[in-house]
């Protein structure tokens, strides 16, 4: 992590203790002591956070009798890798993955295109009504989704779009989310205006400035939007739940809920956990691949992912 770190006590180290001071009164030693205490607490916390993941993974590799063992076995006698294909065979998980991918990437494209062009307009183009519209955009950030939920459902139902992917993909093409617009606008405003002027002299119109100058310069910000979009939509449960009815249209989340609640896993915890591990993998892999971008994105936006 770049940037200065600072101890919260903020003491400057290196002060020489005057005579009559005991060694424990030395600021350096005190500081080291507190740092060790902090490290121990952090280690315990990290262990607590990792236990569920560990338990999930080992349960996925146990035999049926081992999963119910009291006291529980932490490490199975034999690693049952077969649990994975066995669990995934019970339902068309391959189809679920494809469906989730279609929805997530289909809406991601819309969110990227749409939020970036709107953000460009708010960051760069002047119009009398711009500030009023921007305030409205910010206000929608605070709007809890419940209020629009039912009319939207009724609207999409009327259009015959229930049990299709349209309600899950299409809205992203209309603005791409107020939050993304806000994030991209903040980023675009850091691009020097002189570059726009240079492009204008070269004969670029507003659209080509956006397309050929701003977008290529904003890859990190666009990446952040894409990653947050992926996490949000891959894990989303509520929207697919209300719009999708047929099992072959289910997303991974819906399929997993169906698998767990519908008695399909027939109480076989190892299958349930194996399927859950597989469902979590895309987000985990993406997180580890794009960790730096991720943390920076959270820090820039100040919002949880």
């Amino acid at each position, binding site marked *: 992590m770049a940037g200065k*770190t600072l101890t919260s006590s903020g003491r400057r180290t290196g002060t020489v203790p005057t005579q009559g001071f005991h060694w424990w009164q030395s600021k350096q030693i005190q500081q080291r002591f507190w740092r060790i205490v902090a490290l121990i607490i952090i280690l315990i916390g*990290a262990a607590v956070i990792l236990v569920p993941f560990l338990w999930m993974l080992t349960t996925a590799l146990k035999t049926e009798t081992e999963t119910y063992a009291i006291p529980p076995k932490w490490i199975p006698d034999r690693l049952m890798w077969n649990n994975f294909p066995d669990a995934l065979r019970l339902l068309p998980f391959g189809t679920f993955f494809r469906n989730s991918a279609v929805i997530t990437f289909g809406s991601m494209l819309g969110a990227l295109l749409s939020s970036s062009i709107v953000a460009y307009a708010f960051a760069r183009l*002047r119009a009398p009504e711009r500030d009023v519209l921007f305030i409205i955009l910010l206000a929608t950030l605070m709007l809890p989704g*419940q209020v629009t939920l039912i009319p939207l459902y009724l609207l999409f139902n009327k259009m015959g779009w229930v049990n299709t992917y349209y309600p899950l993909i299409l809205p992203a093409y209309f603005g791409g989310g107020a939050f993304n617009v806000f994030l991209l606008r903040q980023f675009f405003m850091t691009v020097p205006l002189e570059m726009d002027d240079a492009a204008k002299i070269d004969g670029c119109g507003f659209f080509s400035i956006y397309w050929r100058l701003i977008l290529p310069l904003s890859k990190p910000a666009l990446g952040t939007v894409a990653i947050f979009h992926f996490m949000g939509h891959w894990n989303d449960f509520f929207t697919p739940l209300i719009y999708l009815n047929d099992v072959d249209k289910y997303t991974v989340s819906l399929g997993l809920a169906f698998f767990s609640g519908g008695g399909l896993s027939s109480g076989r915890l190892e299958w349930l956990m194996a399927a859950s591990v597989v469902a979590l993998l895309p987000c985990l892999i993406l997180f580890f691949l794009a960790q730096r971008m991720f943390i920076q994105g959270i820090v820039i936006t100040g919002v949880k992912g």
Partner: protein
Amino acid sequence: MAVTVPKQSGVQTRKEAWAFRLFVSPWLLGFVLFTLGPMIASFVIAMMRWNMVAAPVFVGLENYQLAFSDPLFWKSLKVTLIYSFASVPMGLVLGLFVAVLMNQKIPAMNVFRTIYYLPAVVSGVAVAILWQLMFNSQWGVINTLLRSVFDVKGPKWLLDESWVLPAFIVMSLWGIGGGMVIYLAGLQSVPTDLYEAAELDGAGPFKRFLYVTLAWISPVIFFNLIMGIIGSFQSFTNSYIMTSGGPNNASLFYLLYLYQNAWQYFKMGYASALAWIAFVIIMALTVVVIRSSPAWVYYESGRGR
């Protein structure tokens, strides 16, 4: 945004304004179609009795009256508020605590930050299933650990009316890493000279933490507080998967009750009224937090969000 561009003719200004309108039109259209329109519609539907089969009947404020005399409405409101008032402040304090510890020049801070952030990456159905199994009173990992480490007989958690909400609160604390990463970034942005000035003024470590550190990151805390309150009214997946609102509606979260009314009993009017009540409560809570903010949120001029 103060922009100084060489003199522009009226034609160019008008051209720019029209480009602005063209570029924001996707968002504006989306705002009217998917936000403003549905909001108005929701307000009207809330005054109807409508089961989607028979024609809607105008009933005025009957749905609101029904809600106020509906014990389940009160129950779900109570559940959501208890959860919110327990999990949001606890998560905030704990997240801040870990962030302060991690800010002490801890070795391998990046690794720990990744570990703490992991739960925030994997929310959703798979995690709900995992915790459902972990909370099992006989072979679940939580009670097993309580028995083997502390020699305590754990409660029945999700099956016990008085323990089901504490279970959800414990689960929410698992995800403090999301907030922690933001606080950590805030802590690292505190200017060193502020500490030095405070130390010169004779402020001890505690006062420095209170008046420098906390004051500096108070806008971040403020923002997370509001988002946390709104978030608990959106809480759905965990209660849907883990308890279906039980036992005896002790975990009937607000959105779950709204969902049941709309998509299980098809009371579209009643559910819309519930959505509006939630909207008013969230707005009221937000206003209270914002009104109280001058007392405890510090904005350096030009640093305001």
